[in-house]
Each structure stands twice: as C-alpha cells, then as structure tokens.
C-alpha cells in the first residue's frame, strides 16, 4: 500500500500541533504580566473593598487562563480536526459542575447545621 498517497489524502493528519510565533509568545507574556500584576497590587494596596477586590481578581484570573490557553497552549478550533477544542469544552463543563456543585452543596449543609457548642474548634 502506498503510504505517501494515503497520508496526503488525509487532511486531518497534519504536522503535529500548531506552531507558535515570537509575536504570539511575547503578546501572551505581556498580557500575563499585566493580568498578574493588577490582582497583586489590588490585594497589596487594599485599593477596593473586599467584595470588589475578590470579583476583580477572579475575573482577571479567568482572562489570564484564556490568554495562556490561546498564546501558550495554542488552543484553537482547528487543531486535530477540532477534537482538542471539544475535549477542552467538555473538561470545562465538568470542572464548573464539580467546583460550583461542591460549594453549593456544602454551603447548604453548613447553614442547615444546628449550631453546636464548641463549633469553632470542632470545625477542623
């Protein structure tokens, strides 16, 4: 069997992962530095109230994760015929369910608990 022609006829078997560029890496790096510096400054300088600070630093962490995914991990919808992207979406769904579900269930458990003497110490 002719290996050459069968490979050529198979467009989804491309040459490994997409290649990064110097511009891409530097863009990602600069964005990461900014998105890391702002949360640290917010927490160190107490520039905003606790709730505002918490929301801001969580938002910037999410943006930074996307920046790393795009510029460093080269995630896009085309690599491997879109299968890496699909696997990532599936994983994000599972992560969101696991973390938000755990927090939700345990929060309800906590507020429905009878207050007990020595609760402060026993919580460990």
């Amino acid at each position, binding site marked *: 069997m002719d290996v050459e022609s069968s490979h050529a006829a198979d467009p989804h078997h491309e040459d*490994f992962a997409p290649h990064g560029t110097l511009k891409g890496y530097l863009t990602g*790096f600069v964005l990461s530095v900014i998105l890391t510096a702002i949360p640290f400054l917010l927490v160190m300088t107490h520039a905003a109230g606790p709730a505002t600070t918490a929301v801001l630093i969580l938002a910037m*962490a999410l943006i930074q994760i996307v920046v790393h995914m795009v510029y460093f991990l080269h995630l896009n919808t085309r*690599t*491997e015929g879109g299968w890496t992207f699909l*696997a990532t979406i599936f994983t994000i769904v599972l992560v969101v369910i696991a973390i938000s579900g755990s927090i939700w269930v345990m929060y309800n458990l906590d507020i429905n608990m009878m207050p007990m003497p020595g609760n402060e110490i026993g919580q*460990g």
Partner: protein
Amino acid sequence: MTATDMGQDPDIFYVADEHDHPEGASTMLGFWIYIMSDTLIFAMLFASFAVLGRNYAGGPRPEDVFELGLLALNTAMLLFSSITYGFAMLAMQEDRQTPTLGWLAVTALFGMAFVGIELHEFSGMIAEGAGPERSAFLSSFFTLVGTHGLHVTIGILWMITLMAQVARKGLIAANRRRLMCLSMFWHFLDVIWIGVFTVVYLLGMVGWT
C-alpha cells in the same frame, strides 16, 4: 453473502485497506486528553479547598502564614519559565539545537527556583506549627499546592531527560514530539498556578469568602 463472494480472503475480518497512521500522529491529541484528565484532578483539589479552606480550627489564618512578596516572586519564576520554554520551542522550529538546549536549561532553572521557594515556604509554615495536620484549611492547602509542586518537579526531571536526549540524538522527529508534549505540560502547570495564586493566596488574604 459470504466473504468469498466479495472476492476477499475469508480469513480477513478487518478492513484490509485501513490507511496507515504515521508514527506519533495521535500523540498530541492523546497527550491533550491526559492534560484534561489532570485538570480534573486539580478541579477536585480546588473544590475541596473551596469547601474546607475557611475552616481554621482556631489555628493560623491565611494572613498569618502567607507572604505576598514570596508569592509574587514565585509567580514571576513560573511566568518567566513559560516564556523561556516558548523561546525553546521557537528555536526548535528553526532547527537550532544549541539555543533550544540553552532555553530549556534556563526554563529548568526557573522551575527549580520555583520549587525551591515553595519548599522554603512549606518548611517555614511547618516549623511555625502550621503544617497540614493543623486544620482543614492547611490540609487542603498542602494537598492542592503540594500536588502542583510535585507536577513541576516531575516536569523538571522530564526536561532534563529531554535535554539529554536532544544532546545525544539531535532534534529528530521523536524528540520534537516529546518537547511539544512537555510544552503543553509546562504551560498547563502555569495555568493551574493562576488558579492557585488567585483562589488560595490572594482570595485568602482578601478574607472575603
């Protein structure tokens, strides 16, 4: 209708003209699936920290044990190591072996600095009596951050192994594939660290649940 009627050897039960898969063609997707499953491990550890991270058992609180200066230094180490690994990959794409090895060495040094600072932090906390057995907050903290640190350590060992392979065999196709897998692994660890420094350290210092 039998196989013989179709003009084929009756002993062949598979598709005879299955096309050939070049060696390593599925490695990148397979490794990405591994990264995703590792993400799930960290998701569980983040979930347990989110649930247990405010149970201090009368012991030390985040503001008592965390040092933001040390954290900033550690975060910088990992961020620098990400860009230097990127430079190693760019050198690899241009078939320049010596710069590739050089940037890999710089990346490994940044990684070692990260692990060293983390071990320094851990040993300081344990010496102060803020070890993993002190409270649920510290148990979940050491499990989550320690698992990440263990990953970085393994990544460094892997990097040194690959540097030896590249030095011996050059930038052959197999070594390029391995370097790309380690690239995913290394950048993935930086992504997890974003979650760690935000959720564990910064949110802990803010004190808002």
